[in-house]
């Protein structure tokens, strides 16, 4: 069992949990992920590692409550436990040795996953421009954290409610056009956002890493459910990734594959919400 040591609601939909997992914490690196299972009936769900504390033996995960498993995960409180928590899985991010200036882009929840990358780059002395995009002001997460590990931090909202209307791509293009010379762009967020960032950076010839988070079962290369097409070849995101060259990914295929179980997932969540309602709001 893996105990919840800390909890923070980052906004209405996004929760941060600090989980006691000393073996995972000891080895975790930015870019890697864990797989959790809430209880005996639970599915195995991959989540990118948002932070880790080797001394405390804790791993931080940040997730959006979008399906039954993440909703249930969000219902856990400090002192509760998860049944399973396995990792660190996947390859750590590899940025290349000669990066001097990087743009780290997070879309919505992707900001949480981009944060450890920004932190790592910052600690390596790389000049970091962080660009985070959200639908509206109320959904902005990790603003202080990201600011602390970046030289410049730009936050956009789709509706302009924070005073800076636009998408991450608009902000990135403006930076590039203003003469910023990035030798690396890291883009993490919804597939559609990563696709458009990759399209933009391809135009400018800037190396771009994206983090894929497809449907998985084992996370160790065994099932092949997480296959993505990279440069025309099939790769397993769990063992070959999750970071890939954004210019090589077949995003349209990835978006399609993301929805294989949409019907069942919706049904599962609906049933769960019904049950909570019937129980008078009790867990």
């Amino acid at each position, binding site marked *: 069992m893996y105990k919840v040591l800390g909890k923070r609601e980052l906004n209405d939909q996004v929760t941060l949990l600090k989980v006691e997992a000393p073996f995972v914490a*000891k080895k975790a690196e930015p870019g890697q992920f864990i797989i959790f299972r809430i209880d005996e009936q639970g*599915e195995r769900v991959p989540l990118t590692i948002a932070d880790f504390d080797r001394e405390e033996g804790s791993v931080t995960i940040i997730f959006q409550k979008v399906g039954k498993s993440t909703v249930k995960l969000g219902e856990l409180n400090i002192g509760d436990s998860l049944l399973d928590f396995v990792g660190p899985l996947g390859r750590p991010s590899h940025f290349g040795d000669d990066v001097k200036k990087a743009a780290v882009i997070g879309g919505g929840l992707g900001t949480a996953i981009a944060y450890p990358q920004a932190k790592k780059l910052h600690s390596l002395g790389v000049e970091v421009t962080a660009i985070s995009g959200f639908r509206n002001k109320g959904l902005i997460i990790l603003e202080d954290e990201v600011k602390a590990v970046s030289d410049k931090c730009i936050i956009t909202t789709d509706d302009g409610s924070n005073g800076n209307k636009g998408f991450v791509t608009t902000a990135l293009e403006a930076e590039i056009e203003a003469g910023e010379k990035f030798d690396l762009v890291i883009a993490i967020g919804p597939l559609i956002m990563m696709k458009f960032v990759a399209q933009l950076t391809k135009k400018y010839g800037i190396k771009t890493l994206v983090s894929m988070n497809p449907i998985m*079962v084992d996370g*160790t290369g*065994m099932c092949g459910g997480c*296959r993505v097409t990279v440069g025309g070849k099939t790769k397993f995101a769990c063992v070959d990734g999750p970071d890939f060259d954004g210019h090589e990914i077949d995003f349209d295929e990835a978006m399609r*594959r993301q929805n294989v179980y949409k019907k069942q997932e919706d049904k599962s969540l609906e049933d769960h919400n019904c049950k909570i309602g019937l129980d008078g709001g009790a867990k």
Partner: protein
Amino acid sequence: MANKNMAPKKVGMPEQDAKKRALNFYEVALGYTEEMAVEEATRCLDCKHKPCIAGCPVNVQIPEFIQLVADGKFIEGYKKIAETNALPAVCGRVCPQEEQCEELCVRGIKHEPVGIGRLERFVADYAIKHMEAEDIKIEKNGVKIAVIGSGPASLACAGDLAKLGYEVTIFEAFHTPGGVLQYGIPEFRLPKKLVATEIDGLKKLGVEIMTNMVIGKVLTLDELKEMGFQAIFIGTGAGLPKFMNIDGENLNGVYSANEFLTRINLMKAYEFPKYDTPLGQYKRVAVIGGGNVAMDAARSALRLGADHVYIVYRRSEVEMPARNEEIEHAKEEGVEMLLLNNPTKILGTEEGWVKGMEVIKMELGEPDDSGRRRPVEVKGSEFVLDVDAVVVAIGQSPNPLIRDTTKGLKTQSWGGIIVDEETGATNIEGVYAGGDAVTGAATVILAMGAGKVSAAAIDEYVKSKK
């Protein structure tokens, strides 16, 4: 001793009716009654040369246990098997006895051999039900051994080492131990409760099991050594699925057999939504391949409610690697065999879902390297099979995680770990390996045999260091 029973055929195995069982996940074969077991046991001639034992990779003293069954001493019969076999209830169900012990049985020369597998299963099930827990006293020697993976090879290795007094810790990547017995072989062939019972038996011998530990990622072999493990056994299996590399393989509704079966067996997708892991409700399923895994996938697809399930295999039935029993069971349940057919591409809808599979007819030509007649395409014979899901069951390669994270570990070009056949020793001192991680996908019992070989070699290695 009872009189010899010269009946030419084995006592029949009671089974669930084919039509009924094709719709449930309960076990197909129901097992012998006590009377049936005694009757079958008396078919054994207890012959002098005991050829059957040579066919058993874990050296079960077959005639001895069968005589005990004939005398109605079922618990004693079980104990006789358990002396050398850590998983009798598993082996009695999934071993290909027809090409091992039973193939060498003297009774098999003229008629059917003794039903050794069925008797093994009977005594194992009997013991689970009736045997009282015994206090097992093993003197611990304080030497720590790490076993990676918890499939058949690892369990056999861990069991033998624990009996010798070693402090064995198994590291399993999944949340439940058992390896392929858990994620691969379906409930209707091998109930998961039995797997758990057999693993509990190992725990009683003092074996520790740590789940959720992906060795190579969370700990390296060097770190295990630093933690005080004096020897390491790698039994990580063949967990890397092969695909056909044809067009359309990444469409929604295409699965590796590993994924399809893991969702069903380990994650219990057949009990969705009680269990959270989903699997699509497919109506027409093509399973590519002709091995036991293909049969398992096809029969599972039927049980999940498919109207048509096809085995698409490029050779003929004679060349199928699956056990005859599995092929027969699949056919009885309604799996349709498309033999001498080879997929050429998978067709998708605009939204990217499988809508069909193009297949070309084959004919058998000259024998190839494997000695089987090589299938050759019949030009222009392509046709489209109307399916909405495809399961690729054409084999697995060894899982690369340990290989990729262990400097200097020697492996074959196709990924298998290179070992000394006599001992299972790898090129790294104190590190042994066995089972599918070494051979590529093979059988449960061969993996167990390899695990036992390494256990003995590890014992010798540790003693030689003292």
